[in-house]
């Protein structure tokens, strides 16, 4: 500590510049972790591929809304097992919505390959992860996809809430729209579920009202 100059606030000796810098960096760490409600910096075990990440961010940039009180989350499908049919798949996502927040908006982004022969009829089911629910799917939504490329499919946020598990499994069941016989025989994959065009969930959460009310009263 330098003795020649005095801290204008507390009258104590001021810190040497390096010591002040080290203190500021420590303060920054605390301030950011507190602001994000984290106890420590996250250890990233499986970061998404850079190309997939920047593509997803570009998509969301187009429709980005003004800053909200809540959070916006992009979650990439981690494992997908495409069943034998041309495009039915099981998508698995790892989500950890903080208890103080609830889901208010959900969209599943899918990239349909150019092999699409016509309009695709897609049904989306939520697959139970608990032992007693395993093997049973809860219907979430159905969509018609008329063209190849990226599509954002709205999901009912109520259907995605609830389970404590951090793993979310979505079963995609798709079939060419009736009357389109050519597609039935084709064996190409219609959905791009790996690589940089893998599916991702776009979620928006907002603070729980009752929680916020309690804070206000206190």
């Amino acid at each position, binding site marked *: 500590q330098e003795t020649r100059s005095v801290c204008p606030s507390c009258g104590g000796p001021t810190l040497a510049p390096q010591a002040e810098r080290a203190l500021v*960096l420590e303060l920054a760490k605390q301030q950011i972790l507190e*602001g994000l409600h984290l106890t420590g910096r996250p250890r990233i075990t499986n970061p998404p591929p850079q190309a997939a990440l920047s593509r997803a961010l570009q998509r969301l940039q187009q429709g980005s809304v003004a800053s909200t009180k809540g959070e916006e989350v992009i979650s990439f499908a981690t494992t997908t097992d495409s069943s034998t049919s041309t495009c039915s798949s099981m998508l698995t996502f790892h*989500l950890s919505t903080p208890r103080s927040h609830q889901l208010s908006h959900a969209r599943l982004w899918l990239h349909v390959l150019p092999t699409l022969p016509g309009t695709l009829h897609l049904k989306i089911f939520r697959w139970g992860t608990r032992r007693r629910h395993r093997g049973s799917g809860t219907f979430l939504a159905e969509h018609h996809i008329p063209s190849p490329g990226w599509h954002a499919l709205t999901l009912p946020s109520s259907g995605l809430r609830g389970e404590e598990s951090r793993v979310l499994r979505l079963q995609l069941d798709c079939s060419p729209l009736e009357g389109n016989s050519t597609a039935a025989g084709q064996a190409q994959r219609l959905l791009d579920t790996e690589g940089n065009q893998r599916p991702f969930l776009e979620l928006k959460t907002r603070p729980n009202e009752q929680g916020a009310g309690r804070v206000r009263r206190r």
Partner: protein
Amino acid sequence: TPTCEPETPLCCRRDHYVDFQDLGWRDWILQPEGYQLNYCSGQCPSHLAGSPGIAASFHSAVFSLLKANNPWPLGTSCCVPTARRPLSLLYLNRDGNVVKADVPDMVVEACGCS
């Protein structure tokens, strides 16, 4: 609010830019690359007590004059933030998901005497 100069004894805003690279956090904080960690520092003599920095108004000016002419100081006054703004962060959480969060009151923009 004046930005603190080394010889500024009175209440001012001390600016520090923190680059997330210096914290070794660029691997999980995607955007922005850093942020302003400002804080308030300096003395608040009695005639400045209650002067809200840049938010000063005619009322507070008159109030300060009254106080300056009052021989009995009203107790101590501290140099505190009077205006702050949120900071938007884009980061990877423990599941490898990308999260955009707006952290309220993160950056001190103005200081004043309480």
